[in-house]
């Protein structure tokens, strides 16, 4: 863990534009919760939170999008803007570059989801339902954020098209393929996150039931974080500058 790299990365991520951009996304679940609360017709609040708000809106869309933006920014923007060499010509092991950057991506994604998840959850459930649903799923998103961040940081070292590959993974693989071929669910961070959320929120099976077991999800998360981080470090160690002359 390198404090200097950590602090530079924090400053990179905390740009005004990016904060505004993510802020807009993060508002969506809150606005939606308010809308359903005020204009909803015959809404079962706990059911809506456990079936729609958390698994579909927050875990299905917002979590991967926020992690994608931060995960590809922390290291990918260094390659895109051409500052990577400044960092790589320093006598520090490559893991001391990857790890702080991963942690910043995770922290940033986690903070955004903690805010949007708790506020939207509160709006959806306050006074009418079991707040543990909101709490459990929100904590699960923060855990899932680490796996997504690790995956996207790795992608940003591997390819300059990390965004499109990442979006394809999230919306084609996790969104479509795992729905068609249920066997592929064991390779889905969304399913791991949902399983953890199921466990932590203690929702009864009638409201929400994850496809994967808790143990499967924990093994999957550990494997994704471990492998992606290891691979990102290994790739950075053998990173070659493009465009020779």
């Amino acid at each position, binding site marked *: 863990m390198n404090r200097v790299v950590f602090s530079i990365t924090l400053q990179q991520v905390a740009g005004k534009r990016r904060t505004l*951009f993510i802020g807009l*996304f993060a508002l969506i679940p809150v606005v939606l919760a308010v809308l359903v609360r005020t204009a909803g017709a015959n*809404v079962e609040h706990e059911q809506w939170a456990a079936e*729609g708000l958390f698994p579909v809106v927050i875990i299905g*869309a917002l979590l991967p999008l926020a992690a994608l933006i931060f995960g*590809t920014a922390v290291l*990918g923007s260094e390659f895109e803007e051409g500052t990577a060499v400044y960092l790589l010509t320093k006598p520090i092991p490559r893991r001391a570059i990857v790890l702080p950057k991963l942690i910043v991506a995770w922290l940033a994604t986690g903070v955004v989801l903690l805010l949007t998840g708790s506020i939207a959850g509160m709006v959806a459930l306050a006074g009418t339902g079991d707040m543990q649903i909101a709490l459990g799923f929100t904590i699960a998103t923060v855990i899932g954020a680490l796996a997504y961040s690790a995956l996207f940081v790795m992608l940003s070292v591997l390819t300059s*098209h990390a*965004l499109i590959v990442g979006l394809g993974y999230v919306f*084609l693989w996790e969104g479509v393929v795992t729905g068609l071929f249920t066997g592929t669910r064991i390779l889905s961070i969304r399913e791991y996150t949902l399983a953890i959320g199921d466990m932590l929120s203690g929702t009864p099976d009638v409201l929400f039931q994850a496809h994967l077991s808790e143990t499967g999800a924990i093994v999957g998360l550990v494997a994704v974080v471990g492998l992606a981080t290891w691979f990102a470090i290994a790739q950075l160690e053998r990173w070659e500058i493009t465009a020779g002359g």
Partner: protein
Amino acid sequence: MPDATQGSIYDLGYRGYDGPRLGRGYALLSLYIHSLRGVFGLGRRTGSKVFPIGLTVLAFIPAVIQLGIGALTESTVEFFHAHSYYGYTQVILALFCAAAAPPLAGRDQQTHTLSLYFSRSLERMDYAMAKFGALATALLALTLAPQVVLFIGNGLAGNDLRGYFGDEWTQVVPIVASAVVLCAFIAAISLVIAAQTPRRAYSTVSILAVFMLTWIVSSIVAELTEREIGLAALLLSPFHMMRGFTLFLFGETPGATSPLGIVDYPGWIYLLAAIAWTALAGYLIYRRYEGINA
């Protein structure tokens, strides 16, 4: 040897061109073709071809499956219907737009070559038109082309190919009409977002988010709130509008439990809304290039 200290102009034999010029229309056509090739990464390095061509191939998968079923078995079952085809491929279409629109609209801004275009016979309106036309045309390869394959595939599924085409030729009108409206619609939406910033990261994520988030959110709003609010939400969601006007053009009705069915408004609304959005987005793209400092 001429005396360099005296000012003088040498006649090097250069001559001005005063013959006919190809003019604005030709410039527009050239930029359109160049942009269209660029969408598929033609004339660029291999890395730029992988995603557009890969996604185009994916958009054919349902049609190819149907074709395979029709060719290899005696089954007459239509697994994939023309009026529902975009329901299977909409995520692919969105990914294609997210990958293609940002470089199409942003590359000239990024490399500061926009001023070079505008100093030629090309007008700003032409530039916007060429870019929009290129993306919309490219999208036909992911929409109309698979529909044609599907049409043939469904024909093969029955034993009587000639009879099938004889009965079903009226389908050609909605197939073409829905594909054309759809391509213009999502091309305009994608470009209006992409034209706002040369930063690829923002526009790529924004385009995909506009398609996917509105889809998710509007489905929920349609399901959980009153009809009027539901309709308003659906008219903000490109995927739902696509579904709505495609069903309308084919003369089909949405399933009762689907968001469109729950809200239950006539289908022409979605067609009208899609055309209105396309016009608005087109106007905003034009405004953007009128106002840009180049």
